[in-house]
C-alpha cells in the first residue's frame, strides 16, 4: 500500500430533493507515471490510481478510468443528483491493488 494516501471529499451536508449538487474530491497520491528515472538512470515503476468511482445509494454517478496523464493528487469535480437522503460512496483503485473508500451522507433540507 502506497504511503500517505488520504482521500478528501467535499459534499454539502444538506440538499433539497432533486437538487443537483457539486462534489469535489481529492486524494493525495504520488501518481508515478512509470516514465521518470531516478538518479541512477533506473526507471521508477508506474504506480497510479487507475480508477475512481462515485455512487449514491448504490447508483453510479461517475466512473473514471485514469491513465498516467492524470496529475499528482488526482482531483475531480462533478455534479450529482440528490433525489433522496442517502450516502455517497467514493472509491479509488490503486495499481498495487489497494482500494481507498470514503463515505459521506447527505440529508434533505
Amino acid at each position: 500500500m502506497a504511503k500517505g494516501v488520504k482521500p478528501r471529499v467535499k459534499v454539502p451536508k444538506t440538499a433539497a430533493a432533486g437538487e443537483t449538487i457539486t462534489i469535489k474530491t481529492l486524494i493525495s497520491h504520488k501518481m508515478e507515471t512509470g516514465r521518470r528515472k531516478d538518479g541512477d538512470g533506473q526507471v521508477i515503476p508506474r504506480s497510479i490510481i487507475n480508477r475512481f468511482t462515485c455512487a449514491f445509494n448504490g447508483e453510479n454517478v461517475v466512473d473514471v478510468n485514469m491513465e498516467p496523464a492524470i496529475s499528482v493528487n488526482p482531483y475531480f469535480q462533478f455534479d450529482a443528483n440528490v433525489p433522496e437522503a442517502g450516502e455517497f460512496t467514493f472509491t479509488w483503485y490503486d495499481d498495487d491493488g489497494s482500494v481507498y473508500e470514503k463515505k459521506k451522507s447527505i440529508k434533505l433540507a
Partner: protein
Amino acid sequence: MNFTRRETLAVSGATLVATLLPLKLMASTPDLISDITGGVKASSGGIDLTAPEIAENGNTVPISVDAPGAVAITVLAAGNPTPGVAKFNFGMGSGSQSCTTRIRLAGTQDVIAVAEMADGSFSAAHQTVKVTIGGCGG
C-alpha cells in the same frame, strides 16, 4: 545462422510493428478521434472543453469537459508519450455530464475530448495548450 521461412516472417513482422509504433504515438488529432469513435465521424457541437491557452507547468493543467446528454467522455492528449488521459463514464445519478480535473502535458499540444452520446453518436472538441515546462519527466 539460418532462418526458416517462418522465422523470417516473424522477425520482419516484429520489425514492422516496431517501426509503426512511434508513428502511432505521434498520431494526429483526427486519427485519435476516429480511434475512439471506431471510424464514425464525430460532430463538433455538443461538447465543451475548457483548457488554458497557456499552461506554465505541464504537471498540472486544469481542464474541464461538459457534454450534456453524453454517457461517456474520453480525454486525450495528442502529444503525450501515451495519448490516453481519462475516460469519464456518467451514471444515472450524475447531475450533469461534466467533470473537472488536472492533467499532465508533455509539451505544447492538442487536448482532445470525445463524447459518446446516449444515441450512439459522437461529438469531439479539441484545444491547443501551450506548455512552458513539460510534465512527463522525460
